[in-house]
Each structure stands twice: as C-alpha cells, then as structure tokens.
C-alpha cells in the first residue's frame, strides 16, 4: 500500500503537503533535497489521480513549480551569470529559495493555528450566561430622535447571539446514562414528586425522560404504586390528561 495514500483533504494545500513530506523525510528545510521531495510529491499527486480524486489546481501549479526548480538545479551554471562583471559579483540564486521562504512563512501560521486551537478548546470549558434584559430599567424618553451608539453590526451581532442562545438551548434536558434505574427508587421519586406538588400531578409530568428504559421503569413504577394503593390515577374523559394523586388525599374526595 502506498504510504502517501491519504485523503486529499487531510492537507490544507500544496504547502501543507510539502511541509508534511519534508518533516517526514527528516530533512533540513533550509536545504531541501529537491529531487527526492519532488518525486514524493509527484507520487502523491499520481496516487490522488489514480483514486480519481479531484486534484485542485493549486497542487498542479506546485507540481510544475517543483519540476521547474528541479530542472534549474540540474542545468550547468552559466558563466556570465556567475561572473557578470569583474566588479559586480552577482551572487548565485538558489532556485529553491523562494519556495523555502514560502514554506517557512506558512509553517509559522500553521503553528499559530495550532496554538489558537488549544486556546479555543480551553475557552470551551468555561460558560457564561445571557445578559439580563435591562429594558425594564430604561427610563421613558421623550419621543424624539436620539443619538444611539449602535451600528448595524451590533444589531446583527445581537441576532447572532440570539441564534447561538437558541442553539444552546436545544438539549436542555440532561442526558445522563444511568446504569441503574431501579423501580423502587423511581417509586420513591414519584411519591416525592407528588409530595412537592401537594399530592397531585399530571401523568405526563412523571415522564420527563428521553431514554426508553427510563420511561418503561417509570410506567412500571406507576403501576406498582397503584397496586400498592399509594397513588390513584384519574381521567375525566376519554383522551383527556390523566392526573396522578396520592391515595390518602383522594379517597375522601373521590
């Protein structure tokens, strides 16, 4: 299996791929063995093409650049370039230099992106709250245009906060996998819930769960409590809401 047979989108572009090849080959970025790296790069591109992945044009442009640099390095140096003039010694340009600088520059920001990612993760561990609605404190003002320090972006920002808030609110129900959800415990909880609600609650209010198993256990607990004459369930008419009452509270009334 080809070692470069990785998904195309694992790389952020030709520079990213090149950096990867350089690091992998453990070579000096200031002295890239161009022939070797170019071969590996072309190998990767060919593999992508064999897999019929779309190779973005940037990758092909880079391939051409690499080949151009490679051929330049193979060419014998032309004399007039080296000794242009007796007094004016022209320093020989390394054909790799421009690419090297780009790689080094890109690498810095790639590193910075990693740091940001860490910071983002840390920040994700602290939570705040939506600001209080302060409009009750707004003093009634005369009906005249006022100067307001808000831009259109403040408005859009506010709307965005609203979306964010709504998004955060969706899973308000706690989702906790309880290994043990024994009927006995659920029976106690139902009695406790009834006590808190002055001995009477609605049937559906007992089923504030998302897990199937918890719903079943709650239903069984209700049946058990009815059998033990601890609670009584009442329904006024067909399909109306069922209310659940403590037995003692209800025997006299019912």
């Amino acid at each position: 299996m080809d070692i470069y047979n990785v998904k195309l989108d694992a790389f952020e572009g030709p520079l990213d791929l090149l950096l990867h090849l350089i690091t992998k080959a453990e070579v000096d970025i200031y002295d890239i063995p161009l022939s070797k790296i170019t071969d590996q790069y072309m190998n990767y591109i060919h593999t992508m093409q064999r897999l019929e992945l779309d190779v973005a044009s940037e990758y092909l442009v880079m391939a051409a650049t690499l080949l151009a640099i490679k051929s330049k390095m193979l060419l014998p140096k032309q004399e007039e370039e080296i000794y242009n003039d007796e007094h004016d010694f022209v320093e020989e340009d390394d054909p790799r230099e421009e690419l090297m600088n780009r790689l080094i520059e890109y690498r810095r920001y790639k590193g910075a992106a990693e740091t940001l990612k860490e910071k983002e993760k840390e920040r994700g561990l602290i939570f705040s709250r939506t600001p209080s609605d302060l409009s009750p404190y707004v003093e009634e003002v005369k009906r005249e245009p006022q100067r307001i320090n808000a831009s259109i972006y403040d408005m859009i920002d506010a709307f965005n906060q609203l979306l964010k808030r709504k998004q955060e609110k969706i899973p308000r129900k706690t989702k906790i996998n309880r290994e043990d959800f024994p009927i006995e415990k659920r029976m106690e909880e139902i009695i406790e819930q009834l006590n808190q609600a002055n001995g009477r609650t609605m049937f559906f209010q007992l089923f504030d769960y998302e897990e199937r198993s918890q719903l079943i256990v709650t239903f069984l607990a209700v049946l058990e409590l009815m059998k033990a004459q601890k609670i009584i369930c009442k329904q006024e008419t067909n399909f109306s809401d069922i209310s659940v009452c403590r037995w003692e509270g209800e025997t006299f009334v019912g």
Partner: protein
Amino acid sequence: MLDKVEMKAIVEGLLFISGEEGIDEKQIADVLQIDILSVKDILRDLIDQYTDQSRGMQIVELAGVYQFTTKQDHAPYFKRLINSPNSATLSQAALETLAIVAYKQPITRAEIEEIRGVKSERPLQSLVSKLLIKEVGRVEGTGRAILYGTTKDFLDHFGLKSLQELPPLPEKDDDTSLEEADLFFQRFQQNLVDN
C-alpha cells in the same frame, strides 16, 4: 464522590448558567447524581450564604425552580447603567428585536416573541420611543395585532440608503451545512460575474 464544598460550587455554577430560566431540583440531582434531599440541603446552604447584605445577587425559588436574581435595592444602579449617556447603546434585547423587525417586517409582537422565545413588549416600546420602529399596519381579522416596521430614522441611523442595503444575516452554522455554503458561493460568484 464529590465532597459537599465541591458540590456547592457546582450548584452555584449551575444556577449561574441557567440564567432567567432557572433550574429545578431534579435537574441538579441528575447532574450531580445525588438524591433530591441532598440537593435541597445544598440549596438551603447556598441561599443562606447569599442572603448576606454584602452580596450582589440572591437566590430565589419560584415554583420549584431556583434562579439567581439581582437585588431590588440595586435597581437605581442598573438604571444608571442602561440610561447612561456614554453607553447609550441599545440593550441586547432591543438590538435583537430591532434585527428581527428589520429583516422580517411587517411583523407582529407575537411573531417576534416566537422567534426570541421571550416577552418583548418592553424592547418594542423602547424602540418605538427611540423612533427606530413604528406601527405600519394591522393584521386583518380579530385582534387586529399591530404590525411593526422600521422607520426612516432607522435607515439614517445605520447609514443605509434603503432596506435593500441591509447586510445578509449570519447563517446558523456554516461549517456543518456545506450545502448552504455552496449556495452562498454560487450566488457570490454570480454576483462577481454580474458586476
């Protein structure tokens, strides 16, 4: 197992993040995986702590739901904050409401409340009194609810020539919904070609 000091700290944090919706004993019990009685015990402790005069918040219970609120005594300072000329900014509530009116006009109060998920009478009033929005009509039929729209002052204030100049609203989340992003780019490129 958490000790009581830790549990109290977590309950404090829970009360804080649950904001104006509050949190009930059962939710707390579920999060900490302890029984309701222990929750009651912790809450009683916390409430006591906050009763102290030196505190800026208090914990109140309403229908089994606990929440932090500010103290009545401090209302004058909150008034000063919101009405201070330096921060003559619109409140978050007012800005949200204004955004909804701007993009969805004409719109009724009920529809705004549906989107915001909270009562919005006060922010609406405040926007009307600042002449940023106004009544633009009534819904046909019973009730004849007021329809709100933005004013010319609104355009002036935000430096817009017309409502067409409003920037597009942010997408909900674009990294996940690539299709939406694709549509956006198609339109974006179309625009580039057109111009």
